[in-house]
């Protein structure tokens, strides 16, 4: 098997996925986001002057994170589950495309879409920040770190959306993915709980606590809002984690999709 051709096919699938997402006007969330942020920025001006920056960063980054997750789930499910459901896939898979190439290509297309989406939202946040603070401060660089972590979070969410789409209906996939997003944000507490629980309950809790995506470590919004730095090692570890977890979910998706009978 010529690996070049595999890479080319994955690239074509990724690009096509991106194009579908853009044309599906799904990225219009950006408009809603921009409106929300500008509204908030104006409101903030009415409140105490000291915490303007705090509110903008907190609100802005939280909005980027939440909007992005919703988008990730929508296009992830919409573009993959729907494709499988509606038999668009028949003509794709009758070509020399391997099933795993399809999954991987979709993943890159989805994450690419989200990176672009995040870029524009981040721009909005920085604009709002400059608007309220009237200048850039050195601590703003940590906001970039927080945004990077949010992108890593999207990688994981996309991978999970793909994983569930490989065997479940569009609605259930969306629900499962969103549920894991919520639980994942509490994963640090889950691990703490698992540590103090003994016996079978403890074993089960531990298993769940480590399998659930570690979104709590990827959320540094509060500290960045206060201008605190993000440790370099955390950036390193989180990157490794996000890549590994995504790989796990994608390989799971591949394994399931390999043997799926398409209706």
């Amino acid at each position: 098997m010529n690996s070049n051709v595999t890479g080319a096919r994955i690239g074509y699938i990724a690009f096509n996925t991106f194009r579908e997402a853009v044309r599906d006007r799904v990225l219009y969330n950006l408009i809603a986001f921009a409106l929300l942020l500008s509204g908030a920025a104006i409101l903030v001006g009415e409140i105490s002057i000291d915490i303007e920056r705090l509110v903008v960063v907190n609100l802005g980054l939280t909005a980027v994170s939440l909007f992005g997750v919703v988008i990730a789930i929508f296009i992830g499910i919409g573009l993959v589950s729907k494709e499988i459901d509606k038999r668009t896939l028949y003509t794709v898979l009758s070509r020399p495309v391997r099933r795993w190439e399809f999954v991987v290509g979709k993943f890159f297309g989805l994450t690419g879409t989200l990176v672009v989406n995040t870029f524009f939202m981040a721009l909005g946040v920085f604009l709002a920040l400059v608007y309220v603070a009237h200048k850039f401060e050195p601590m703003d660089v940590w906001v970039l770190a927080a945004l990077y972590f949010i992108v890593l979070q999207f990688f994981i969410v996309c991978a999970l959306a793909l994983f569930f789409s490989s065997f479940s209906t569009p609605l259930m996939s969306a629900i499962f993915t969103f549920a894991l997003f919520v639980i994942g944000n509490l994963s640090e507490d889950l691990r703490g709980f698992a540590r103090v629980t003994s016996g079978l309950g403890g074993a089960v809790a531990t298993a769940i606590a480590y399998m659930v995506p570690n979104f709590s470590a990827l959320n540094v919004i509060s500290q960045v809002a206060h201008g605190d730095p993000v440790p370099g090692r955390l950036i390193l570890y989180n990157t490794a984690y996000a890549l590994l977890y995504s790989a796990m979910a994608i390989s799971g998706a591949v394994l399931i999709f390999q043997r799926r009978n398409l209706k």
Partner: protein
Amino acid sequence: MKMTPTRRVTLAATAVFLLSLSGSVTAIHAIDRLQANSVPQQALYLRSTKVLRRLSLGYTGLLADIYWTRAVQYFGQQHHNDSGDFRLLSPLLEVTTELDPQLLPAYQFGANFLAPKPPNGAGLPGAALALTQYGIAHNPDQWRLYYNLGFIYYTELNDYAKAADAFKRGSELPGTNDFMPILAARMAQHAGEFDTARMLWFTTYQSTKDARIRQNAVEHLLALQVDEDITRLEQVIQKYRAQTGHLPSSFGDIERAGFIRGTPADPKGHAYRLMPDGRIEVEDPQKIYFITKGLPPGAEPPQPPHEPQPDLK
């Protein structure tokens, strides 16, 4: 088994899955270790419980449980790190109880670990009092809260009158512990006695399921025993000296004089040491905590180690 392209992909995907699974678990460990040395981030930014309450969209119970778990984790972690810094314990417990005023274990935890001085606790008896009183206001028929109140007044503030009052009020509530009225009575005249303190710590031990609190109570009971033993032994030595005109050179002397039987040992089984100047010392001060007697001159009362000990039954 024929190696078809499909099988190859299945094998590769399985390998990737297993490797990335173990890799991600390792990464989580690394991240947790990294975070453990820094004060938990979310805890630092507790500004307004009202905001928190609104953000929780009504699921305040769950949020309270989460903060409770975090409080316990935080305390254990700070203890483990030997930092002596528990400044977040109070706000964490406050948030917990404001979100769920009926979370009784939080008040108990606060009474036992907010009041004592570092490195055992946060050294904030005032905060502990405020927390307990808040708890009483929201749970007026819980005798345990009055017990906690009395406990704080007794152990950290030495205000026996208020302690007595608290125990009395608690003794009038339904389901109250049998010791409460006795404790209330003893506060008046026998506040400083060993038996009173012993009763108090025993009640603490008996009335909680929290392993940490029980552990703490046990250590205190053992220390009381040691203090009592040594006080009595030193009195015996004075009697001996009055009788013979000189200090005993060994326990055998005292035994032959009929004052004691056998070689006295501490509750952990180590024999006491008779010092040439008539004092008694414990064999190894590091092995018994909280004692105020039996230490070499100028020594600090030893504190428990950082690793949680198994619960002594």
